[in-house]
């Protein structure tokens, strides 16, 4: 670490930002960050689900932010501090839409990240990624650190339908391979160790089948984390207003009745058709499986709904359904909406 630290000193000195004085025996930025990270061990270990993840301490009295996942399913998970201390962690709240969960451990005077004092980064900025990928670290061993560059600051919803994720806010995309078991809940920091973002879950772009290395900026998490900590958080199951996607149409507006959406990814089967509707006239039938809408693969009722929601009056919607072993194409026109 000393090399990197010296390099950054050189650069900062060159830029005239930082005075030369810097005690050598102080912790390096990477060591500082490590003191504020925890290893989390919980449910999993079967069926390819890993049983470990990473978290970061956000208050001296033991609140820990991490990614919301199956690892947190048990009432109590094991939280291992940077110094190897093992503590019981309990979930005090979660916002699945943000993939954020807040744990509490019984401890005092912990080193922590101040969420109100997080940094931001632009495209091209060099960053460090911390997390316990592959459970390489146990006990007091520091978690893995990788270097990378912010490849983009973008919105996951820009690829709407491609990611199985409710979160549609801005994310950092990095070139470091953070999409690994155990990295979720880790942190992205600047080279000098300032908190930027929480590393997200292992998500795959369903369209290209590639894994995305992304992290959710702290700005997006801070308010909710604070509300959870103070007990004022009320979970809102509808998407957050400012980012709510348009919902211009539903399937029923086209005369299509879908099967009940009971699963995370309920296949978009037609349950029935409104008599006399355009859809019925076009010979769509119950038990047809909706596969494509305007050339986009539809993997669930939700994705269909979201795609229909974006249609404007008069748009022609191209649908491909699977009926038995054959594919059937139909075109439906978005009907006139009754103005309120």
């Amino acid at each position: 670490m000393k090399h990197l630290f010296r390099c950054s000193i050189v650069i900062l000195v060159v830029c005239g930002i930082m005075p030369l004085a810097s005690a050598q025996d102080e912790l390096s930025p990477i060591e500082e960050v490590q003191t504020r990270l925890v290893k989390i061990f919980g449910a999993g270990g079967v069926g390819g689900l890993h049983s470990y993840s990473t978290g970061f301490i956000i208050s001296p009295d033991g609140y820990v932010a991490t990614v919301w996942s199956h690892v947190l399913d048990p009432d109590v998970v094991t939280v291992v501090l940077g110094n190897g201390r093992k503590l019981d962690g309990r979930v005090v709240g979660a916002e699945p839409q943000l993939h954020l969960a807040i744990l509490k451990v019984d401890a005092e005077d912990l080193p922590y990240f101040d969420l109100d004092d997080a940094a931001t980064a632009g495209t091209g900025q060099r960053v460090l990624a911390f997390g316990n990928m592959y459970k390489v670290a146990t006990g007091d061993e520091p978690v893995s650190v990788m270097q990378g560059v912010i490849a983009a600051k973008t919105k996951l919803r820009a690829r709407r339908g491609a990611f199985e994720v409710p979160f549609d806010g801005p994310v950092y995309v990095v070139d470091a391979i953070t999409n690994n078991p155990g990295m979720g809940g880790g942190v992205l920091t600047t080279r000098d160790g300032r908190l930027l973002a929480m590393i997200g879950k292992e998500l795959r772009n369903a369209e290209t089948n590639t894994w995305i290395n992304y992290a959710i900026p702290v700005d997006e998490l801070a308010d909710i984390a604070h509300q959870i900590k103070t007990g004022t958080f009320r979970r809102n199951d509808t998407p957050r207003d400012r980012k709510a996607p348009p919902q211009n149409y539903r399937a029923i507006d086209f005369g299509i009745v879908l099967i009940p959406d009971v699963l995370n990814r309920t296949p978009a089967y037609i349950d029935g058709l409104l008599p006399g509707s355009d859809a019925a006239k076009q010979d769509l039938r119950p038990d047809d499986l909706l596969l494509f809408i305007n050339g986009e693969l539809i993997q669930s009722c939700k994705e269909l709904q979201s795609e229909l929601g974006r249609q404007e009056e008069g748009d022609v919607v191209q649908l491909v359904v699977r009926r038995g072993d054959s594919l059937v194409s139909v075109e439906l026109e978005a009907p006139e909406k009754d103005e309120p």
Partner: protein
Amino acid sequence: MLNIPTSLIAAMLIIAPISAAPAHAVEPTVAQAEQHRVEVMARAASTVVAVFGAEGAGGGSGVLITPDGYALTNFHVVQGAGNFMKCGLADGVLYDAVIVSIDPTGDVALIKLLGRDDFPAAPLGNSDLLHQGDPVFAMGNPFLLATDFHPTATFGIVSGIHRYQYPSGTILEYTDCIQTDASINPGNSGGPLFNTAGEVVGINGRISLDKRGRVNVGAGYAISINQIKHFMDHLRSGRIVDHATLGAIVSTNQDGAVMVDNILDDSPVFRRGLRLDDEIVSFAGRPIRSVNQFKNILGIYPKGWKLPLAFRREVDGNIETHEIIVRLEALHRSSELTLGGPAKKPRGPQLPKNKRKDQQPDPAKTSPELAKYYQKKPGFLNYYFNELERDRALRGLPELGDFSGVKGRWIVTGKTETGEDFRIVFASTGMGMLLGENAYLQPLGEDVVTIDEPPGSGGLLAGLNHLRRLLTLGPSGFSEFFYVGSTPLDGVGERVDIVEAELNAERSLWYFHKSTGELAGFDFWIHDDADPCEVRFSGTREFRGRMLPAQWTVKHADKIFVTLNIDNCEFPTSDDETVKEAGR
């Protein structure tokens, strides 16, 4: 568009050098650092080896560490490649190489490139000085991209140090290794991880794999060069090198303390006093706070090394702390270690080997030039190198004088440290000793049991018989006599070469100072499950043209048995040329 007025071109030419610092200009320090890195990488690249089987099959990497061609690579790279390999260097030349030694547990192999004594060699760094975040770069031949053998460089940081990677269905275990995000891929195996000074800090050999197939996912592991340094002389011995076990298993208790969970009562560590439920405090000078740390330390030392171990025990409510020096035992039986190695491939980034192995001719058969570098002998990987190292280790012996003609009795006399007289008689049929009031007589020969050794010496007289045979007969005085490697003398001293001698069921290890070749002492075992008789020498004295150590310290089971100061040695005169000449 091409009609640019010449005056404008001239103006541009003039302006260009003056306006050398536009907004995108690079700081001179940054440019210098970049230039330095380019130079370091160019130098490093010249030492990197592309390793192939004899017929060009397979493919891994390696790194030259001496000008005469010794190169490190992974065991899993040479596994199945045969005794000879083809090695390409960055200069585009393909060299023949021969296997020297393998360390199947540590996944290390030493090979020797042939044909030059001025190979570019990479300096070895100190991997204990690495920190998380330090910049490092890997070099090698990933995906066999380089048809001209010029290595690929990938840059990254140290993601973790002191990592422990479990064996993956094989005996191969990565202990105390370096984790890096520098991209390591199939074909990189055996190649070097360099620090920014261009020193080798590790040998890349393993990557974490998950959902993306056999490609790097940001977590590669390198065997630390400091581990390899411990084994380096062992790796020159032409043998299959083994790692160590303590003879005790540890686990973490609820308070996070590392406790002895199980212990073998015939292990050296049991004889030194370690017991069930003792808490391990430190090992080899490093504090122990987890089982991984304990395994990390155990994994980086060869069998037979002595290491300090501190442990705590609660006795009647009081905590006792003990510090012992313990000799490590072999991790495997010799039958478990072969060049064929584990049937299952380790989970490392190696490329598929050529399956048409039967079609590979042995180059040694076709080239007598090469054949001399490989010598087959049971128990050895390549006996050629063992002889080479054995003779180097023994180079100090002739300086003691010519003992070859000395037959009959030697009589060594002197006083012990406590002022007692002693007298030792060396004869071919038996050894005798007078120590103060006591007399001991140890007959020699096959099937002779040790009947009359000085109690508490561990077998001094039978051991001194080995000394006599070593001096008068050399290697031919023993049924087995081979070079082992090196170790710090008694765990704390200067590095000494180790030569092992076997005669009947007796075994002795001979220690020679690496720097001078001087005989430092020996350990003698009457049988393997007992503590040895440890004799350490200091100084030399001349007796009629021959030199003997001046002071012999005899230790057994952690206690000094006696220290002998030699005053005189009488050699037989009948065929003693020195005496005859002196008499003229």
